[in-house]
């Protein structure tokens, strides 16, 4: 089936068009983004259960962007009444004028920017999905997740693990967005789903949390076979309770697709967000056309380059989704860009202008960030390592576009000596280094690839949005602590 577009947004669209028309009498550019996204989240464990009709991306509200005298301003609000467009217009203008008075009093000068183009365009997309979150049988889902939690506990005990709990989480979100200007009418509706299974396991010295996740740009059918995750979670749990601390140093490593995705995201995902170019905050601006990785490294970014939780038809500024080749055989080709940054840099937007929700500002943000596949097998890659680790699972990462440092906290490392896995596990690992050194050391890439979209990405420590990242196995040299 196709995910149906929101009747609420369809109902208020004429009123929003009237609002745009009224605001255009005062401003040189006006756009409106309205959202109506619904969903659910179910979390089941032995000790606590919850059902909510909210996810981080469920929302309903409107943001108006206006432009005059070289300056952009926005007003975000809830509760738009289509019959009260004039009143809403007056309220927006009055408050923005009040802000301008204050800014003038404080002697603030604008960062002058050109006006956004407003070429006629119409998009109406209802993406294909399986089931809809709003139609999901929550009773059956609770029963299924409860059975998985029970089975996880039983199987864990049968394997000799001291399991404290086994948690299963399922969430599904139906995104509906309406973007309007005087000449443009863009409407999209799609569904994505995320699942997580986790074991809380007590070891001799500490308690640890083993988890796996999955995601898809489809409906709650993702959870039909969630019990298949149990063996993987228990394997990770067993590995974590036996893990030791790594001896700090530089190692040859093979990164699993999840860790590869984390590197993609933190290294040249954030590193080429071009709103950072405008501020002079990204070293990448000086490296376009220059080598930043080995010849094996090619990396794509865009809502179109994979199908996962951040694969939309247009971004939050009405720019159609794209697929950008950021790194081509080791050469940095371009970055990703929101519409205002593109105006300021004299380039074209790439469909990466995203908001945490309607009430937040647009920044350049990632969608799907993915390394291209190579030609090696995982077995060949392991056999080539003299002393190092196979890295699996991610905990967190932090970008550093200005200096190209990288911090990735990795869940587990599996020791490899003379081309063979020894069975020794280390956890957790802090992977740090200089991004071009890391990417320059990539010497083998596997022929498969996988994308992970169950996490959220912040810009600094705020502005959380859905992103997906991944790729194949990479062989590289990194510093672990």
């Amino acid at each position, binding site marked *: 089936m196709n995910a149906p577009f929101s009747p609420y947004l369809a109902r208020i669209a004429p009123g929003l068009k009237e609002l745009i028309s009224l605001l255009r009498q005062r401003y040189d550019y006006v756009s409106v983004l309205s959202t109506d996204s619904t969903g659910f989240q179910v979390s089941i464990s032995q000790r606590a259960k919850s059902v909510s009709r909210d996810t981080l991306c469920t929302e309903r509200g409107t943001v108006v962007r206006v432009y005059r005298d070289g300056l952009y301003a*926005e007003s975000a609000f*809830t509760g738009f009444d289509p019959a009260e467009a004039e009143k809403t217009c007056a309220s927006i203008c009055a408050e923005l004028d009040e802000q301008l008075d204050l800014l003038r009093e404080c002697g603030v000068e604008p960062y002058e920017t050109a006006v956004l183009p407003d070429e006629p365009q119409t998009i109406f997309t209802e993406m294909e999905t399986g089931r809809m979150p709003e139609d999901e049988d929550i*009773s059956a889902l609770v029963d299924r997740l409860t059975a998985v939690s029970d089975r996880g506990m039983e199987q864990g005990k049968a394997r000799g693990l001291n399991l404290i709990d086994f948690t299963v989480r399922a969430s599904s979100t139906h995104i509906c967005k309406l973007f309007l200007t005087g000449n443009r009418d863009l409407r999209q509706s799609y569904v994505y789903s995320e699942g997580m299974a986790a074991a809380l396991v007590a070891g001799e010295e500490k308690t640890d949390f083993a988890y796996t996740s999955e995601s898809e740009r489809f409906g709650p059918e993702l959870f039909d076979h969630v019990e298949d995750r149990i063996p993987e979670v228990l394997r990770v749990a067993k590995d974590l309770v036996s893990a030791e601390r790594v001896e700090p140093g530089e190692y040859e490593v093979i990164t699993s697709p999840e860790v590869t995705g984390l590197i993609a995201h933190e290294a040249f995902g954030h590193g080429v967000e071009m709103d950072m170019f405008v501020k002079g905050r990204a070293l990448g601006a000086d490296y376009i056309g220059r080598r930043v990785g080995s010849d094996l490294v090619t990396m794509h970014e865009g809502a179109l380059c994979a199908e996962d939780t951040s694969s939309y038809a247009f971004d939050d500024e009405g720019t159609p989704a794209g697929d950008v080749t950021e790194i081509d055989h080791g050469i940095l080709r371009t970055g990703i860009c929101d519409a205002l940054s593109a105006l300021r840099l004299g380039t074209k937007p790439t469909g990466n202008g995203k908001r945490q929700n309607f009430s937040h500002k647009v920044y350049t943000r990632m969608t799907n960030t993915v390394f291209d596949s190579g030609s090696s097998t995982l077995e060949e890659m392991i056999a080539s390592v003299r002393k190092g680790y196979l890295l699996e699972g991610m905990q967190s990462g932090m970008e550093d576009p200005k200096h190209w*440092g990288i911090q990735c*906290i990795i869940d587990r490392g599996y020791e490899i000596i003379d081309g063979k896995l020894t069975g020794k596990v280390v956890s957790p690992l802090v992977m740090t280094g200089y991004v071009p050194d890391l990417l320059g050391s990539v010497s083998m890439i596997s022929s498969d690839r996988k994308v992970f979209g169950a996490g959220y990405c912040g810009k600094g420590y705020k502005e959380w949005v859905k992103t997906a990242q991944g790729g194949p196995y990479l062989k590289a040299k990194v510093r672990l602590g």
Partner: protein
Amino acid sequence: MSDKHLNQLIDILKSSGADAWEVADINEWGWEFYFIRHRLDQHRTKAVDSFSVKVYKDLEEGKFLGSASSRISPDASAEEMRRIVDGLCRDAAYVRNPFYTLNPPSGNEAAAEPAPLDMKNVCAAFLRAMRSLPETETESLNSYEIFVSEIRRRFMNSSGIDVTSVYPSSMVEAVVNARKDGHEIELYRMLKSGTCDPAQLIKELTEALTSGRDKLAASPTPALEKADVVFSTDPARELYCYFLSRLDTAMVYRGMSDWKIGDIVAPENLTLQAVRTLPNSSWNTPYDEEGAPIRDLVLIDHGKAVSYWGRRQFSQYMKLDSSFDVYNFAVSGGSETEAELRAGDYLEVVDFSDFQVDEITGDIAGEIRLAYLHQGGIVTPVSGGSISGNMSELAKTMRFSKESRQYNCHLIPSVTRLKDVTVTGC
């Protein structure tokens, strides 16, 4: 949101078949200003309202309590609200948690309502403070964002609570640059507060400008293997949040923390207290999100766990009747001065990429963006590499100053020293 709308929702809840319910009517009014250097990138206003609704169903004659929650938009029609509430009642019937009761009225709900936020003046104070920093040709602001908002939250439940919290919440995110001989570095700061305290804001960002200058001269961090590490900036909060989290009833009940009342869980002189207010904290609300009154409460007394804290459900499971969510806390008990803690050889890390303390495992980790290596009386700025370790070991020899410093909702020792931390060089 209008009282009419709220009353309509409550009427729907009362007739829905729910055995209990909670409603929060949340209004956020905010002004925001975004700057590239000192030029205005854009300005924004925000007026966002929503209802947060939770319904409860008694299951199997009070053995279990089911619940389900949802936000409801302020422009939802009565029909839409009824459809959502009916759906929640159905969902709640599938969620079999052990029975507990909702917070009862505390008897002193009529807390004085604070004066409304003077938005224009608070924003003006931020704007002027940011333009009065001691910037130079070589150390300056790259960009900054100012957020000022007033949160109004009315909470009602079927037990009779009807309380309103109104509080300001502000934030400045700033990026500082320093440059020399064609080389430029940056440092990042996120400073939260209630309203604007210009002196504090200027102090914090002036320190960042100084750190920026030092980072320019930083050498690569050497591999120290094990070293004493001193924390004297914002990331130190994470060390103390670890102690707080481990006493959260949700953590303890779910087996993520094994701390018990009476256990020695922290250095013997450490006292950690939940406090109702801290000066200019962005969390000075009289009630938590479930309507429980917030009060001062000692959680760790001279290293010994003396009280759990937490939200209603898990606190009831742990036989706590008057618990609450902790937002502000204060740590005290240090007996050494900052100078005493800075004696001998140590690495003082003032800026991390992202310093983290895992509240379940106790693992600590962070990449070093700027640190000062003190060895044999020589101080060297260093950058790169990382620190790691585990709090269950490190807490045993942790030392902290008698002087304190406030970071928004946390009042903590101004200097904390950990022994034998793993330092990986770069």
